[in-house]
């Protein structure tokens, strides 16, 4: 077998050195009745070429040749081949968590840069590296807010990504954490009227997302003020991190829980991505996840190490800030390389292009009779439209034209049937936006 670096005679030599007659002997501590006699019923073995063919065949069963207007937490952005070339270097790809700092300075330095970039992006003081994804980052941010405040009620905007909220609920269920959801206004923003001082009393955190699930930007400073006035933290989650190239960062939030996928990570059917928590320096010891810190060796040379490990499970076990161990380091690296390439101007330009495409798409789509924006507030690259018909029916028709249309959000918001979430990015060609508009117009013109 090509992955195994042993010849049959080397195996014999090694057995002889051990003093074993056969390899079966090495498994004798397993009670005999549990030892398998027959080979497992597994497909394979396959050669490399056959493996490639299998996966090519699978890829062909997906949406090849379709244009997609899906976002909803996962965004298609330009990625440079340079990033992948760097990430595929065996020295990065095939190394473990950098516990042995002297031979892990590559990874550690890159993590330190990642932490810095995330702080700059979010305008927070410290950032970790990393959480599994946005949904678990948000969940851990809420648990962190609970530890910081000692309170156990959380107000969560319904405009937070529905799947993020589901994850939060799964974790919260057994921890005595009370989750109360806060509705939205006609603007598509969290309804601030509902954040009464009564509700806010005893709340550990107010949890929002911006741009929110409807693509609408929330007003972070005002929400922070309301939360802080009641002694609660403001936890902000960000699923579309490219927005930060042009949208005011949530500086007033106490904890930012971000999904880094938009920063150079492929959609990859939902993962692996990279979650991040960024927060104020004073909360760092309540933060979950790994941190690299700067230090020196005996000769005074700068170097980086994993630090503040006393927060972590391998030291603190049941008292740790989280159970996370393996994280998404490689995708933190992806985001780091990507952002270094994009740089200050590139990120701004990319964000600006998204903004322009969304404005164009809104204008094109609103020209269709019966189609209008569902919410009035400002958006980045995603927006909800209201249609005169079921989004599912429209999508079925679009599918025949190889368009993956608006996401029907009625599934998660029963009051929002006939609403569809549309996403455009710098990768969506103008012609495809026009084709989408023309197709929807045609579909709506045809009898049901």
């Amino acid at each position, binding site marked *: 077998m090509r992955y195994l670096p042993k010849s049959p005679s080397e195996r014999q030599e090694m057995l002889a050195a051990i003093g074993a007659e056969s390899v079966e002997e090495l498994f004798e501590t397993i009670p005999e009745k549990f030892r398998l006699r027959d080979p497992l019923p597994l497909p394979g073995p396959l050669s490399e070429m056959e493996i490639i063919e299998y996966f090519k065949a699978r890829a062909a069963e997906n949406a090849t040749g379709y244009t997609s207007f899906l976002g909803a937490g996962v965004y298609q952005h330009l990625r440079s081949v*340079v990033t992948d070339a760097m990430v595929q270097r065996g020295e990065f790809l095939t*190394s473990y968590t950098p516990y042995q700092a002297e031979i892990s300075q590559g990874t550690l330095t890159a993590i330190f840069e990642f932490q810095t970039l995330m702080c700059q992006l979010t305008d927070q003081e410290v950032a970790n590296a990393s959480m599994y994804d946005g949904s678990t980052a948000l969940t851990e941010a809420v648990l962190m807010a609970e530890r910081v405040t000692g309170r156990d009620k959380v107000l969560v905007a319904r405009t937070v990504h529905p799947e993020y909220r*589901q994850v939060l609920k799964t974790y919260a269920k057994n921890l005595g954490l009370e989750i109360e959801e806060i509705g939205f206004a006609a603007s598509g923003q969290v309804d601030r009227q509902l954040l009464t001082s009564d509700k806010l009393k005893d709340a550990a955190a107010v949890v929002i997302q911006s741009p929110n699930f409807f693509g609408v930007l929330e007003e972070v400073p005002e929400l922070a003020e309301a939360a802080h006035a009641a002694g609660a933290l403001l936890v902000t989650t960000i699923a579309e991190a490219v927005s930060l190239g042009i*949208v005011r960062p949530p500086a007033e939030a106490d904890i930012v829980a971000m999904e880094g996928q938009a920063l150079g990570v492929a959609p990859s059917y939902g993962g692996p991505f990279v979650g991040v928590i960024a927060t104020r320096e004073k909360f760092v010891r309540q933060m979950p996840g790994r941190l690299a810190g700067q*230090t020196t060796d005996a000769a005074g040379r700068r170097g980086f190490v994993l*630090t503040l490990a006393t927060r972590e499970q391998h030291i603190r076990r049941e008292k740790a800030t989280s*159970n996370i161990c393996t994280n998404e380091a490689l995708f933190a690296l992806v985001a780091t390389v990507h952002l*270094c390439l994009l740089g200050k101007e590139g990120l701004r330009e990319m964000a600006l292009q998204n903004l322009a495409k969304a404005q164009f798409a809104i204008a094109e789509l609103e020209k269709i009779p019966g189609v209008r924006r569902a919410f009035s507030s400002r958006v980045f690259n995603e927006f909800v439209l209201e249609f005169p018909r079921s989004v599912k029916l429209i999508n079925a028709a679009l599918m025949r034209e190889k368009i993956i249309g608006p996401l029907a959000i009625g599934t998660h918001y029963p009051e929002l049937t006939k609403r569809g979430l549309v996403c455009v990015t710098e990768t969506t060609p103008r012609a495809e936006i026009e084709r989408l508009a023309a197709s929807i117009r045609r579909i709506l013109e045809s009898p049901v």
Partner: protein
Amino acid sequence: MDSKLTETEAPPTTIRKAGRHVSQNEGLIFEKSARGKRGMELPPLDVPPVDARAVLGPALARESVDGFPEVSEIEVIRHFTRLSTWNYAIDLGMYPLGSCTMKYNPRVNEHVARIEGLALAHPMQPAEVAQGCLRILYDLQNCLLAITGMDAATLQPAAGAQGELTGLLMIRAYLESQGNPRKKVLIPDSAHGTNPASVVIAGYEVQNIRSNDRGQIDTDHLREFATDDVAALMVTNPSTLGVFEERIDEIAHILHERGALLYMDGANMNALAGVARPGDFGVDVMHLNLHKTFSTPHGGGGPGAGPVMVKKILEPFLPIPVVVRKDDGRFAVDHNRPKSVGRVRAYCGNFGVLLRALAYTLAYGPSIRQATEDAVLNANYVRKHLEDHFDLPYDLPSMHEVVFSDARQKKNGVNTMDIAKRLIDYGFHSYTTAFPLIVPGAMMIEPTESESKEECDLFIDAMRSIALEAESNPELVKTAPHSTRVGRLDEVAAARKPVLRWKP
């Protein structure tokens, strides 16, 4: 003390695997920034440009990200290429980190993960245009079930720890459905730190139980602790000592008798794949670490995937969504599972990791057993050649890894971390230190099946040579490594006054 031996270079004759070579210095990327440099350019905008302040309003618009780097493409390439050369990696040599299963990460897996129709698939694209992704998930589920002998699987969890939590949540939901979720989860003192940490998030109390003097679960002790309050025992099998729990069926029996379940931390499945199936020896729930046993690259700390396999009784409680095959042969995601513990992660798990694990499994097929055999062979071979030189606190037969202690070297003031650091000079990554906790000064060595006899022999030589150095020149070992760009770093200073980001 012989001053010559405290020189930064050890006598060259003793080190066969490595030398030293010129190595590029490199600052932080922020230190290379200059206004106006670009590393990536975008195609021109094909719609009318907009004024951000006008569209967003002054309150929401941002001018630019302060401090963000401005560098060119070649500077980025050099920066990360240089950084990379400071790392050790599996692609460079043996990485005998016990419990971490640092095995070869096949290159073809990277290739297939980048096929456009897979890499660009959106998790919300309708099932009718996601059949390929769903089939990959479905096929992997089936492979993992075959290997573990379990009945149903979820691929959602993002890593082992999340798998543990998911499994515990299912246990809880099951027990709740039986009327009482119970209070405690038993954990052997040899367990990995994620086990107790996960127990807490699942809303249980941790009850530690001690191992017997052979490093195995003490069944008498277990009987005593396995009260009505106990929801489950989390056992790692083979244990973190690399030893099979010989009485695993008795353990399962004790728990089941009391209405509790047996959770297996499958991090050490590299000792069992193709040889024995947890489903056969009484395990009710288990997770696998695909980034260990199934060869997906660690990438400096992640990503991983921690699928959970369960017995039939727990199937209703699987997290949503569940990938199913419909009667017409097509694949779908099932969200409509009223008894589910809920969702543990957005979308469909770490798909890119999962597909690599499937590629790995397909490469071996039934001959996965050969990998397991080689892994166990390597561990025993290393053990055999080192047991005269290092203390072996528990001497039951080893499976895929062996745990020594630094007891002998301690006499000269040399501890497991010193030896680990000295291994670096010998051209190796170190083994795992200070785990499991039941072995003071643990040296946990897991070669995996990916090591050739040659590499094992070099490792054995290195370890023996260090054992000698610990006698003849302990300072040399205690001040190691001597061959790296930076020496031992001041971790205390790092933690005391944390500098966690660059500032201008």
